């Protein structure tokens, strides 16, 4: 049996009497591209923040890379990469300086950082821009760079929170090529998205509605079960029953 890198059991996060995440249970296998779908406000980001060690759950259990989300956040953080919805590289640092900084805070040595950042800049084709401030780059490049920085320290799992928001279709395609490459190198990818065509690229997807997981399977299997032509229809059938208004 394949190794499970994320195991959630009845994981819950409550704010007052609002259940942002309501008893979700799932497992993610090593090397998998795991899609996390849901309307705005369905609880995707909250669940992801718990798994990244940014937020304490209210109840239930979860382990990430074998570490407990209540007590071992530091070990979790050492083994994951994270790319948030908000672009979070430093705009007033250059590409090389950003890579150096994030590599450094994950404990890589200067020699390793130098070697890998050279390779990375070459792969991204950013040789000419390497000394430019990140703030001056177009959005598509920023997102690709942010993803590369998130997996720069070769984590076991990378969490991507709506990584392709506002990005053009061509860049989105290139972005997904990068995701496939990362997965092929053994990094588990946990990704939230609104784009249903992207959902089709995932090995398995969950669809969250009102804090609960309503479906979890391979895209092909979900389409059969809901007798839908594409993921868009599957999502629509599930999400229209949502009671929470989207924000």
């Amino acid at each position, binding site marked *: 049996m394949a190794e499970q890198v994320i195991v959630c059991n009845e994981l819950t996060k409550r704010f007052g009497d609002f259940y942002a995440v309501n008893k979700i249970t799932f497992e993610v296998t090593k090397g998998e591209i795991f899609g996390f779908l849901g309307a705005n406000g369905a609880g995707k980001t909250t669940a992801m923040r718990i798994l*990244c060690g*940014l937020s304490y759950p209210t109840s239930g259990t979860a382990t990430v890379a074998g570490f407990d989300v209540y007590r071992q956040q530091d070990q979790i953080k050492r083994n*994951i990469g994270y790319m*948030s919805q*908000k672009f*979070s590289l430093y705009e007033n640092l250059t590409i090389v300086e950003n890579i150096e900084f994030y590599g450094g805070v994950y*404990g890589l040595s200067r020699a390793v950082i130098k070697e890998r950042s050279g390779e990375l800049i070459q792969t991204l084709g950013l040789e000419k821009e390497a000394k430019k401030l990140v703030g001056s780059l177009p959005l598509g490049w920023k997102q690709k760079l942010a993803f590369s920085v998130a997996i720069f320290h070769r984590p076991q799992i990378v969490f991507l929170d709506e990584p392709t928001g506002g990005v053009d279709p061509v860049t989105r395609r290139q972005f997904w090529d990068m995701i496939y490459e990362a997965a092929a190198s053994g990094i588990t990818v946990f990704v939230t998205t609104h784009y249903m065509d992207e959902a089709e690229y995932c090995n398995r997807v969950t669809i969250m509605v009102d804090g609960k997981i309503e479906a979890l399977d391979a895209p092909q299997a979900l389409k059969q079960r809901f007798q839908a032509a594409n993921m868009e229809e599957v999502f629509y059938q599930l999400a229209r029953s949502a009671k929470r208004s989207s924000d």
Partner: protein
Amino acid sequence: MKKLGFLLQKEFRQILRDRIILVMIFAMPTIQLIILPLAANFEVKDIKVVVVDHDHSTLTQRMLSKLGASGYFRITGAVSSYQEALHYVERNDADVVLEIPANFERNLVREGRQQVSLSIDAINGARASIGGAYLNSIIADFSQGMDLDFVRAAHPVAARMPVINVMYNTWYNPREQYKYYMVPGIFVLLLTLIGGFMAALNIVKEKEIGTIEQINVTPIRKWEFISGKLIPFWLMGLIIFTIGLLVAYVVYGIASVGPLWLLYLFAAVYLVALLGFGLLISTFSANQVQAMFLAFFFMMIFMLMSGLFTATESMPGWARTISALTPVTHFVKVIRMVMLKGSGFADVQLEFWYEVAFALVLNAWAVFNYKKTS
């Protein structure tokens, strides 16, 4: 430790890339030191006097010329009635009305005493009371000198009454110039601004643009992140302090009488305390506007209660208690003692431990409040 190196490298790169901050590092101490001692001058000069002289005697002429010669007063008008004089005050052409009754000279010589009336515009309370006191002492002085000339003949007994002479010695600031009082205070202002605002705004800015979340998801330790933020601003504070000392020496010729190492020791500890305060503010604020408001609110109170501009001794008891609870107060006191009086460590030991306590409490509170996981 290695991670801290990367953090510091990043912070310095960002600070040094910010032209405005670089300019401010040099401009702020220079401009504040040159301008503020002039603005915060409590010396009362050029008090405008309008005279209502009903006597027109040689004696009143002599008294008025003495007033003018004192350098503090300028006689802006001589009118014939009190009503007219009030118009001067209303038009802001006079601060004081000096009314001399008719037969002033004759009555003075005959009875040995005579009254003049002073009406003072008290809108600016400090100016009014200080000006009034000056005027009083000049007239008293004048009447004493007059004893010799006039009164002795008429009242030999009164003239022989012993007169107590008070001798003043002004120490530490022999020329009684306000710049000596203000310049050390401005160092405090400078360090307080750097410590209280810059680090707080810097951290809150990371919250605002979302990079702090990216930091929180890395295995950086709390103390590493916080040290990475505090050390650059601590160094910057000390650089500004040094520039300030140089400016004070070059522009005003003020050099510290006490040991420099003691000044730096206090500046170093004080900055840690204020940076801790800024950090604390940043943990309570979600954005830079909130942080600015919060920091400004406390800074205003700290500054005004600190004895920087007014003497803490003249505050009511409860206000003095508040005053003692800000790190600014103790630093203001010490820096003046060391710079102007040449006090040594033994003299300011108590204040030193106060500052250390402030530094520990504020930083501990801030670190406790800063959460990587919510």
